[in-house]
C-alpha cells in the first residue's frame, strides 16, 4: 500500500476558521464600543441560525453533521453577515439573511468547498434587494445619537422593533457617510461641504473608522498567520485607491478622496475577510490579483454610479461569477513548460 506522505503539517479547516473568527474580534470590540452591544446579539442570532440550518441541511443531505459543524465555516459566514448588516438589524432580518447564506448559497450548492458565491454576500445581497429601507438605515454611533439606547433598549429594538416611549427611529438612526455623500451630491453640494457633517470622522465615518481599524488589525493577523495571501487585499486596496484617486484628481468637488473610500463602508472587511474566502475566489496568484482588482473597481463604480450606497456585495458576487474564467486564463507556468 502506498499511503505516503505519512506526515503532514497543516492547520485543520477548523483551525483556519477559528483564526478567522479570532481575527474578527478587534473589529467586533470596536463595533460594540461605537454602536453598542446590539451587534453581539446580531452575531448570536446569526450564529445559531447558521448552525441550525447547516445541521438541518446536512441531515437532509445525509452528510455527517459533527465534522461539518465543527469546521466552523458556517460560523464565519454568520459573523461576517452580522457585521455587514446595519447595527440593530431586526432579528428576523438576520435570520433571513443567514438562512439564504447557509441554505441557498452554501448547502444547496454542495456545502463547504462547493459554493461558487460568497455565502455571506449572497445573504447580504438578498436582504439589500428585499429590504432596501432597513438595510440602508444605520443607527448613529452612540457618540452622535441624541439619546443613546441602553443595552436592554437595543435588545428590545432588535426583537420587537420598538423604542422607548417618545423616541423615534429617526432620532437614533443616521445615514452612513457613503449614503449621505451620495444623496448630498445629488443635491449639487460639493464634497468639501458635505464632509462638514458630524457623521464624517477624520478619514471616513465617525466611529466607523474604529471598526475599520479593527478589520485592518485582524487582516494583518491573518496575513501573518498565512491564512490569507497578500494578493487579494493588496490588489483590492490598490485598485480601489487607483480608481477613486483618478476620479478624485479629475474633480475633487464631486468625488471623495481615495482614503475616504478605503476606510468607509465595508472596504476593509471586504479586503481582508470577504474576498479572501478561498472557496468562492480564484486560486492562481495572478487570478487573485485580477479578481481583487475587479472587486475594487466594481465596488467604486457601484458606490458612485449605482443605486446602492455601498457596492461590495454586488462587486464580490459579480467577480465570483468570473472566477472559473479567471482561473482558466491565469494558470501559472508549470516547471519545465513554455509559457
Amino acid at each position, binding site marked *: *500500500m*502506498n*499511503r*505516503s*506522505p*505519512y*506526515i*503532514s*503539517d*497543516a*492547520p*485543520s*479547516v477548523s*483551525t*483556519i476558521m477559528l483564526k478567522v473568527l479570532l481575527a474578527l474580534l478587534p473589529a467586533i470590540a470596536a463595533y460594540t464600543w461605537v454602536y453598542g452591544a446590539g451587534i453581539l446579539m446580531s452575531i448570536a442570532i446569526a450564529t445559531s441560525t447558521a448552525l441550525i440550518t447547516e445541521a438541518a441541511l446536512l441531515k437532509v443531505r445525509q452528510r455527517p453533521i459533527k*465534522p461539518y459543524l465543527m*469546521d466552523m*465555516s458556517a460560523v464565519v459566514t454568520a459573523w461576517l453577515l452580522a457585521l455587514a448588516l446595519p447595527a440593530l438589524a431586526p432579528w428576523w432580518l438576520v435570520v433571513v439573511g443567514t438562512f439564504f447564506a447557509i441554505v441557498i448559497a452554501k448547502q444547496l450548492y454542495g*456545502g*463547504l*468547498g*462547493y459554493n461558487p458565491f460568497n455565502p455571506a454576500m449572497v445573504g447580504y445581497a438578498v436582504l439589500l434587494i428585499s429590504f432596501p429601507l432597513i438595510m440602508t438605515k444605520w443607527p448613529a454611533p452612540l457618540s452622535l445619537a441624541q439619546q443613546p439606547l441602553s443595552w436592554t433598549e437595543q435588545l428590545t429594538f432588535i426583537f420587537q422593533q420598538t423604542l422607548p416611549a417618545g423616541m423615534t427611529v429617526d432620532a437614533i438612526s443616521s445615514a452612513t457617510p457613503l449614503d449621505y455623500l451620495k444623496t448630498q451630491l445629488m443635491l449639487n453640494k460639493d464634497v468639501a461641504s458635505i464632509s462638514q457633517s458630524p457623521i464624517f470622522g477624520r478619514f471616513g465615518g465617525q466611529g466607523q473608522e474604529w471598526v475599520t481599524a479593527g478589520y485592518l488589525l485582524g487582516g494583518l493577523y491573518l496575513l501573518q498567520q498565512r491564512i490569507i*495571501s497578500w494578493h487579494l487585499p493588496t490588489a483590492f486596496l490598490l485598485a480601489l485607491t487607483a480608481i477613486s484617486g483618478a476620479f478624485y484628481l479629475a474633480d475633487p468637488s464631486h468625488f471623495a478622496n481615495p482614503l475616504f473610500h478605503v476606510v468607509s463602508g465595508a472596504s476593509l472587511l471586504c479586503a481582508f475577510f470577504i474576498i479572501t474566502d*478561498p*472557496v468562492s*475566489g480564484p*486560486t*492562481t496568484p495572478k487570478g487573485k490579483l485580477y479578481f481583487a482588482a475587479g472587486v475594487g473597481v466594481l465596488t467604486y463604480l457601484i458606490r458612485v454610479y449605482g443605486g446602492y450606497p455601498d457596492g461590495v456585495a454586488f462587486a464580490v458576487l459579480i467577480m465570483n461569477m468570473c472566477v472559473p474564467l479567471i*482561473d482558466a486564463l491565469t*494558470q*501559472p*507556468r*508549470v*516547471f*519545465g*513548460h*513554455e509559457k
Partner: protein
Amino acid sequence: MNAILNLASRLLPGLGRHDGVHAFNGGVHPPEHKNESSNVPISQLALPKMLVLPLRQHVGHMPKILVKVGDHVLKGQLLAEAEGTVSAAIHAPTSGTVTAIDEQIIPHPSGLPDGCITLTSDGLDTWAPFQPIAWQQGDKKTLVDSLRRSGIVGLGGATFPSHIKLRSNGQSNVHTLIINAAECEPYITCDDMLMRERADEIVAGIEIVKYLLGAETCLIGIEDNKPVAGTAMRAACQQGQAEVKVVPTLYPSGDARRLIQLLLDLEIPSDKRSTDLGVQVFNVATVLAIYRYFAFGEPSISRIVTVTGNVSRPQNFEVLFGTPLSDLIQAAGGALADTSHFIMGGPMMGFDLPSSQVPITKAANCIIAAKPDLFPAAPPAMPCIRCTRCADACPVNLQPQELYWFAKSDNFEKARDYNLFDCIECGCCSYVCPSTIPLVQYYRYAKSEIIATDKAQEAADLARERNEFRLARIEREKLERAQKHAERAVANKTEASAQANAAEVTPSARPSDSAVTDKQAAIAAAIARAKAQKLAGSPAAEPKATAPSKAESLSTPADKQALIAAAIERAKAAKLAAAQAGLAPKNTDNVSASVQAEINQTDAIREKARKLNELDSSEPDKG
C-alpha cells in the same frame, strides 16, 4: 556531537552558506529526524543464513536466470544477467547454494509476489575471483558495456540501471555531472553517513563517471543539514574533482530536476531529459558502487540502509541484498513493542512493507519502524476549500487543487491538460492540505487510469487498422483477379479479331463482330482516360477529342493493353493525389498512411475493374 557541528556550521561563516544556489517553487520542510540514526558509524550486518534475491530490483526487464536450484555459487557470482536494453544483473551477495527459484513477497507497494532466487549461505563468504578494470585507458563504450554486468542501479531509490545513464553512443554532450547528495527526505541518513565515512571512494567514483560521460565539471549538491558530510566531501575534492554546493534543506531538493534547478539555475523542459541539456545526475551511493566495480571488480551486492523510527538503536547498516528485513531490525536492537508496521523509504514518498520478512533490495535506502504515534492516521478528508496551500507547496508549480478536482470527477482529459503527468508525487501537496485529502493517491489513480485508457485505445486502434488493412487486401486481391480475368478476355477477343482480319477471311457476319471488339476496346481506353482526367481534376491533361481517333488508329492488342494500363496508372495517380489533397473518404480519417495508400490503390483498381466489367457485360456474345 552532531548537534554541535550543526550549530557550528550555522554560526561559522562559509560553512552553511548557499553561494550561487538558486531556488524552485514551493517545497516543504518537515521535521528532519536525521540525528537519530546518524550518531553511530555504519555497521556491518552479520551474514544472514538465507538471502532472497528478487529478480526485479530495478526499473526495466526481468534479468535472465543463469543458475538452477542446487548450484553452489560464490560471492559476487552472476546469478542473472541483464536482458533487453533496460535491465540489470543480479549477483550472489555471499557464497552458498541456490535453494529455490520461485515467487515470493517482495518489498513493493503492491505487496504481490515476484520471481526470486533464494540463496542459502554456506557461512564462508568466499569471493569469486575478480579483477579491477583499468578504466583510465579503457574504451568508454567497452567500459560502459561492462557495467551491464555490474548490476549497479540508481541507489537513491529510483533503481534505474546505471549503464544506460552512462551510454553515450560515442558522442556524449554531457558537460556537467551532478552528484545528488541532497538526501532531502526526513529520517534517511544513508547517503550522509556514506559521505562522512567514504568520501574518498565517492570522489574516486566521480572521476570515473566524469570520464565515462566526458563531463568537464561536477557539482555535488548537499543539503545544509549535513555539514559533516559536506566538510568530508570538500576535503576529498581537494584536487578539484568536484565542487561541493550546499543547498538549503527544503524537500524535495533531491529530485533530479529540482537539484539541477538549484545548482545550475537550469530548468529542464518537461519533454526533455537532462542529458539533452548536457547534464547527468547520479546518486552519491551509485557513484561509489561504480568505483568499487572498476577498482575491485566488485558487483552490486550490498548497500547502506538506514534503520530508524521505532527501533531501539536507530543506525545505518551495510546490508547484503536479499537479507531479510527481520535480521536488519534485530541488528538495530529490535522494533519496540508498539511498532505497527515498517515503511520502506522516507515518510514523504515511502510505502508500507507487506511483511517483516521481505528482503532488502537495491531500492531500500531506509526502513522506518512505524507506530501510530509516529505517523498518525490522517483524519477523514474534508472537502477541498481551495486554499491553494498545495499550489504554494508544489515544486513543479502545478495547481494540485484543480488536478484533485479533475481526478475526483474522473475528468482525466482535463487532468492531463493541467499537466498531471508533470507531477512527481513528492507529497508536498498532501503534507500541507488542511482538509487532509490524500491528493497524491488521487493523482496516481488518475495517471494509472489515463495510461490504461491510452493503452486500450492504442490496442483498439491497432486492431481496427489491421482489420481495415485486411479487408482492403481481400478486396484488392479479388479485384485484381477480376481485372486479370477481364483483361484476358478482352485480349483474347482482340487477338481473335486481329487474326481474322489478317487472314482476310471475312464472312458477312464476322466484320461487324471484330469491329465491335475494336470499337469497344477504344471506348474502354477513352473512358479510362476520361475518368483519369476527371479524377485528376485537370481537363487539359489529355484532350478528349484526340482520344477516339488515337484509339481508332490502334490496331494491335498489345497497344490497347498498354493504353488501358496507362489509363489505370493515371487513375491510380489521380486518386492518390486526390487523397493526398485531403479528398479521401471520411471513414478513413484515422488510419495510418500505409493503410491509406493501400485503400486508395484498391479504390483505383476497383474503378478499373468496374469499367472492364461493364465492358464485359455489354458484350453480346459473352459467355
